[in-house]
């Protein structure tokens, strides 16, 4: 027993180091979150005064695109799968959230238009609805992710594409929106099938709660989660799947679980982005939002930004959202421009703007490319 005594202090220090580490990691998660929300508040109150309503609106769209691109990058960039149905998850989440706020408002307040002020009851209802939308999208992500275990490359891409297109067609078959509170109260549960969300013309009159604060709060959550994931053991496991599936398995990575998990996570954030989108003023979420065109926009953002680079795809999302607005007169050439941009990128910088790196890793001496010299 005598010789066990010296070991005790060592154990104690070790334990407190562990505790400290877990405290550190909580702070590392909360601090950026708090900073992001402060930034979101600042954007909300300062930006419109400086750049005007129109440009603020573009910044809001950029935020939604960032959530989409950063989350898609978990699937396409980190695990190296190829999904081109991301807008499907977005639209599913959007419709779900819109149904909750629209019918919630109609039921509780007798009318769907925006209720309450900044951070009022209506906005909180929307935030909650976005999260529910995310969860529903995540469920769909699980189902769509399952084939990724058997299919790869082109075949998986076709499944994800099919998901978006099927959703588009299904949404076109939905029934008319119920507009009268009395009719809603008299409605039977069976009227939920098909859901009353407006059919082919889209879901109009969804209350417009989305503002810069909420968009950038959700951007912050998405980016913090994506960043923490990328630098965690789980994230490294996902990246190892992209790099070499066999070797990844040989390291004990459960590649099936990780591939599906990537789909579920990405779909969740896409669902929340859809919720924000559906509540944006001037937007009527409609079946075509689930289609290929929108999905393709987000794929381009991830390709342009670099696979696995969070800051890279954020930048690409900003550029590709702002550019078409600035070149509004050339709207009909948008797809041609995208194609040209992609061809040029493939020729000049096939790894994307930042490749696999984050923006701060591009400065010489700080990057992962640094080679330690022998002393």
């Amino acid at each position, binding site marked *: 027993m005598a010789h066990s005594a010296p070991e005790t202090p060592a154990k104690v220090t*070790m334990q407190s180091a562990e505790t400290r580490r877990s405290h550190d990691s909580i702070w590392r998660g909360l601090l950026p979150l708090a900073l992001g929300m402060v930034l979101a508040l600042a954007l909300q109150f300062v930006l419109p005064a400086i750049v005007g309503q129109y440009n603020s609106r573009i910044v809001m769209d950029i935020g939604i695109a960032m959530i989409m691109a950063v989350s898609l990058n978990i699937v396409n960039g980190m695990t190296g799968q190829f999904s081109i149905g991301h807008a499907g998850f977005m639209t599913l989440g959007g419709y779900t959230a819109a149904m909750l706020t629209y019918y919630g408002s109609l039921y509780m307040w007798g009318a769907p238009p925006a209720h309450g002020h900044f951070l009022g009851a209506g906005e909180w209802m929307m935030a909650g609805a976005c999260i529910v939308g995310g969860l529903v999208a995540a469920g769909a992500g699980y189902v769509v992710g399952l084939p990724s275990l058997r299919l790869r490359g082109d075949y998986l891409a076709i499944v994800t594409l099919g998901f978006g297109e099927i959703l588009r067609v299904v949404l076109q078959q939905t029934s008319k929106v119920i507009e009268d509170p009395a009719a809603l109260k008299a409605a039977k549960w069976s009227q939920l099938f098909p859901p009353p969300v407006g059919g082919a013309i889209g879901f109009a009159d969804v209350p417009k709660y989305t503002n810069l604060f909420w968009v950038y709060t959700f951007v912050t959550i998405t980016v913090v989660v994506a960043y923490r994931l990328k630098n965690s053991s789980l994230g490294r*496991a996902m990246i190892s799947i992209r790099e070499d599936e066999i070797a990844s398995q040989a390291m004990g990575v459960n590649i099936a679980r990780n591939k599906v998990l990537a789909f579920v996570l990405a779909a969740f954030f896409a669902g929340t982005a859809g919720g924000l989108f559906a509540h944006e003023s001037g937007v009527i979420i409609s079946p075509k939002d689930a289609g290929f065109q929108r999905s393709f926009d987000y794929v381009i953002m991830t390709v342009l930004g670099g696979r696995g680079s969070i800051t890279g795809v954020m930048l690409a999302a900003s550029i590709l959202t702002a550019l078409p607005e600035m070149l509004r007169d050339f709207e009909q050439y948008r797809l041609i421009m995208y194609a040209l941009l992609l061809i040029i990128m493939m020729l000049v910088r096939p790894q994307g703007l930042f490749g696999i790196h984050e923006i701060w890793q591009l400065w010489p001496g700080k990057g992962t490319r640094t080679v330690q010299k022998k002393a």
Partner: protein
Amino acid sequence: MSLLSVNDLWVSYGAIQALRGISLRVEPGEIVTLIGGNGAGKSTTLRTISGLLQPRSGEIQFQGQAIQGRAPHHIVTSGLIQVPEGRGIFANLTVDENLQLGAFTRSDRVAIRKDRERALELFPRVRERLKQLAGTLSGGEQQMLAIARALLARPKLLMLDEPSLGLAPQIVQTIFQVIREINREGTTILLVEQNASMALQVAHRAYVIEVGEMIMDGPAAELAASDEVRKAYLGAH
């Protein structure tokens, strides 16, 4: 009890019958080598043991437990680790991150740090390059990293698939020395090689495989001296 025993293993890729009733066993503490020409079925054998391929029939026991049909990550957790052919380096991750992935299934931080220290002692060249992207390493350094990474999984049985592939003789020497060293410290090794002369020098026992069938086995020294092996695999006339 054998650490690993494989019994009458049949494996096919679609219509191609790659293994036709392979049997082998590895005792604790041994270095066993599996030699044979191109396409003989060596990699197929290792992949099947690791759970990357499902056998048609046959039995694989590790530490007395049947493991055929189990998922690769379960098999890794039980201490059966493979360094795949062609090294399987994660090129766009740093050397350090590659090493961390080696310990992916473990959570005992203190022991991992110790194993990592030991692996880097065995391969000083890997230590010098921790922050470098693994894809920028030379072939020899990549092989060293692949072995170091596997050591971080704390293998009870380490299976190496052609560690000498495409490497200069000097580097091959270094790597085989380390293999001996690892074995001396208590890790059992199953070594697949085309470089039969090197493999027979380090191994205790050997198996010779030809088009999916085991044609010979015995103490490495005996096989190295036999006419058949000398003619077919050691380039003697």
